[in-house]
């Protein structure tokens, strides 16, 4: 008549037999169910049908904090300090030696606790008028901590004085407020006939043994509570930056770009001079670039150096006027950590000046940046180039639109910009959740860059940072969450 399921029947039978209201833990015990969700589910079902009544009572659960777990393992600070005091003669119990033997974060706090336990400081020495009394108190506190070390306990089972003592100390215990629920049978519940509470034989777990026989054919499969919590497996997962790199690589490869890479250690010549960045450019200073002690310099063939000298000073090999000034060949041969991946693309053109190419690279670059929420001294750069006879600004912008739309950003706009080695230079903006965001720079390499490399054709180039995009997608506001992560947070990020 009631359509009770087996669980509800069992709980109902228990409630009928009990004179006092029963809580979750006693119901678990009586049913033998380890999953409390079953108990609560069934009891709430009975409540909704008016067969049981629910009463709720606030309670406080006490559990150990991080420091509490440490104390359970290593002993409370006052315990360890009292041990320390006992292990030395009274004349050796000085404040100075306590600061030597205990970590500085512990020494001050610990002495404070000892003083509250009756220890005195006289002339820089610690005096213990009642060692036994202090030890008893420390042991009492220790016992309290140990009580909680296995599992949290309701506050009414614990010493109120010690709860309030530990609440005032950092990190030792945590109070968790919860509601204690208990159920009792209602008049209607009591009126149910016993035969109605006989449980039908239900199949819980499906086992291979069970399926070997035929008995299951006449039994019922127990329905499960689909809302009951289930453990979420923590499998091996890719890092979001790596996933993003893989997607970007896929876009480039689809578009007919080939992948290139290069060394972190480069010469200033290839990293800067080849890109026509003047030698007195602010980005070349020690405040911006990591120069190396080992290797201090990298040899470059003299003909190349002379070529850069001519181009920088007078625009030799081009119709440029050059930067003027004096070019320093030693400066070119200084070793540094690459500041951009453009050094790879430029070297690629130098090695293949007369074949058309579309290449890209994703790699780490290094800048003199102090670590904070938005800066790291190393980060990833993505870069692509088109080197062919008919390369032009419209081809660059068309390619950018294709690239960004394959990335998922179909609204792209460009505006003039400046980069030392491209002319014209443009800034790329994409529409991201209703806002225009700068997501990369682009341009055509200056003739002073490409002509000395021996190419007849323009080179379209564009690049972007990887971390900023990753942070936007993942909603991060701190770049360190990518490189120095809290593994719990990292394990909850979606797979990109």
């Amino acid at each position, binding site marked *: 008549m009631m359509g009770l399921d087996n669980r509800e029947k069992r709980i109902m039978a228990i409630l009928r037999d009990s004179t006092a209201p029963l809580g979750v833990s006693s119901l678990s015990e009586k049913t033998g169910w380890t999953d409390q969700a079953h108990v609560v589910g069934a009891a709430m079902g009975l409540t909704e049908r008016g067969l049981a009544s629910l009463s709720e009572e606030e309670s406080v659960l006490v559990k150990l904090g991080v420091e509490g777990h440490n104390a359970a393992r290593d002993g409370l600070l006052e315990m360890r300090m009292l041990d320390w005091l006992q292990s030395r003669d009274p004349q050796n119990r000085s404040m100075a030696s306590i600061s030597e033997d205990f970590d500085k974060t512990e020494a001050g706090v610990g002495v404070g606790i000892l003083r509250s336990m009756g220890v005195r400081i006289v002339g820089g020495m610690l005096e213990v008028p009642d060692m036994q009394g202090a030890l008893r108190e420390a042991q009492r506190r220790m016992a309290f901590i140990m009580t909680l070390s296995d599992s949290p306990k309701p506050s009414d089972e614990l010493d109120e004085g010690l709860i309030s003592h530990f609440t005032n100390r950092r990190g030792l215990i945590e109070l968790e407020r919860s509601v204690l629920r208990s159920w009792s049978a209602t008049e209607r519940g009591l009126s149910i006939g016993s035969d109605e509470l006989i449980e039908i034989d239900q199949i819980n777990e499906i086992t291979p043994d069970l399926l070997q026989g035929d008995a299951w054919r006449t039994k019922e499969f127990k329905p499960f509570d689909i809302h009951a919590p289930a453990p979420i497996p923590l499998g091996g997962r890719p890092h979001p930056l790596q996933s993003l790199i893989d997607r970007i690589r896929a876009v480039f490869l689809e578009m007919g770009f080939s992948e290139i890479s290069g060394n972190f250690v480069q010469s200033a010549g290839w990293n800067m001079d080849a890109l026509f960045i003047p030698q007195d450019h602010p980005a070349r200073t020690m405040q911006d670039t990591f120069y190396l002690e080992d290797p201090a310099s990298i040899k470059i063939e003299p003909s190349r150096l002379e070529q850069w000298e001519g181009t920088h000073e007078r625009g030799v*090999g081009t*119709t440029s006027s050059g930067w003027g000034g004096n070019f320093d060949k030693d400066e070119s041969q200084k070793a540094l950590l690459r500041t951009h991946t453009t050094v790879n693309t430029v070297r690629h053109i130098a090695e293949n000046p007369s074949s058309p190419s579309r290449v890209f690279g994703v790699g780490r670059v290094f800048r003199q940046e102090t670590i904070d929420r938005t800066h790291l001294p190393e980060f990833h750069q993505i870069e692509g180039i088109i080197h062919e006879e008919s390369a032009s*600004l419209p081809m660059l912008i068309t390619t950018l639109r294709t690239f960004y739309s394959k990335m998922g950003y179909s609204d792209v706009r460009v505006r*003039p910009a400046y980069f030392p080695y491209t002319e014209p230079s443009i800034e790329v903006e994409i529409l991201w959740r209703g806002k225009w965001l700068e997501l990369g720079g682009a341009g055509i390499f200056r003739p002073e860059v490409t002509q000395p490399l021996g190419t007849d054709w323009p080179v379209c180039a564009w690049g972007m940072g990887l971390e900023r995009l990753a942070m936007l997608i993942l909603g991060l506001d701190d770049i360190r969450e990518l490189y120095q992560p809290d593994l719990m947070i990292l394990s909850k990020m979606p797979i990109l």
Partner: protein
Amino acid sequence: MPTIKLQHSQLGDIQKFNGHIYDASRWVSDLSQIGVVVENSTDSEIEIEVFPDRPDLLSHENLARAARSFLEDVEAPCGIDVNHGQERMVVDPSMKYVRPHVFAVIVREVYTGKSDSAKDLFVQSLMDHQEKLHTTLGRKRKSVSIGVHDLGGIQGPFSVSADKGDSVFTPLGEEREMALTEILEFHPKGVEYAHLVNPELGYPLIRDCKGKVLSFPPIINGVDTKVTTESSDFLIDVTGWDRRACLAAIRLVALSLHERGGTVESVDVSQWDGSHWRLDFDPVEHKVPESLINMILGIEVDSNTMEKSISRMGGKIVGKVRVDEEAIGSRWDGTAVDDLAYLIHMPAWRSDLLHPVDIVEDLIIGMGLNSLPEKKSEVNLPGSPLIDSYTERRIRQSIRALGAHEVQTLTLTNDIREFQDVRIQPRGAVTRIRNPITKEHGILRQNILPSLIELLAANRHHELPHRIFELGATVIDHSNSTSVAWACADANAGFSTAKGFCMSLLRDLGADENNVKLVEGPPKEGPWLAGRVAIVMIGDAHIGTFGEVDPNVSFKFGLRVPIHAGEFYVNRIVDSLPDPLFR
């Protein structure tokens, strides 16, 4: 990049003086297309970021002029008339090694504003303009330093020479006379820029005919010629080491004053080498081949659009010529003899125009970037990934399948973490930074495992287990290499789990079990526990090492949990275990 704050009131005053109306809202909506970034606009001011190649946009007056052409299509002459002045400046040969380039010009009858407050703002903006030029063009006054003086009360001829340092004058910001050496030691500007003068070669000084000190470049001006709200006639001096930048600076300051109705008057500067110099404002003629324009823009531009676009950028097309032999300096711009080239006049203060391609950029900015057609690449090329990336993907998939979480850590590290704490010997030369930010990041890593142990330590407050791995770059003998490492803090795992990880990886990579040889690792080398470390050999190649981490090592990282780990050299894996598809 320099960011400037401009007052709406000043911009309004300047535009009105030039017969125009200043429209702040149009500046906000449209000016970025000229190649600046409009950052912010409030009731009183507008904040604009100017790219470093456009120092000609760094003042109220100069940006207002550019905006009139760009936003209002006002055709402005590319040159300015300069009166042939009578004043002289004589540069002493002692300046050759001190600040070799010295220039000067006079601007008279400058309109500085109607009200006192407007005049105040003018004086302030004149100072700001100089400071912006000092930091950009001037490379913090090393290449260029500028002095602007009230011309009233001083008389030419002016002299510029290197002083021994015992001369005295009252510098701006002080109320008493100071010796030059004293200024360098005590005056704030002296302290800031003392490194730019060399006591052995002398201190540059500019004086008038009566010996009154105008300036001690690049440090500070004298109080006698201080610009005030009363000033209307100015002398501008520029000294420095970079001739091109010095000439740009003197023209830009003079242009600013000219935009306020000032008459520019040249000064005869006799240089230390005996030559004479006078400032001119004649336009500079650039020869821009049509073929270069067509190549960069990918379209043919009609002459009407050309004229209009160049005019918006402050220039003028004056004709067309055939390219002769002499004009062909380059191959890149694809010009040939008999190609047509535009003759384009651009203002002399546009010092950023090094190559005809710079004019092409101006042209496209003038046309608007959004006017370009679609154009696809015309070459058919297949895209190929780096060949090692296949193996790297397979390794990542294999280790992920073991439940290890991929991480990325920094390549920058230090000797203690990288070698000492983990008892690892360098595998080759260590790349060492000369100017690290912190001692923690002074070298490049040769192994990945130490970073992983460090990351486990940073996460020790979390419940176990932690299984992490990283595949990434290491640098040995200053060349990039690739390694993969795992580290697991797991209460229920040890050597045999590590061996399982290794064998699983080798199986996934298609290794033949008969070729794999495990060798006992040497004790006390590496982070490993003696007797629980194995070196993995494939043929003669040592492709990696795995085992249990010695608690003595993990304690140094603050870890008190069992850790098993391994590190494999991807380059050697690629060589020893060929890709099944390529085999």
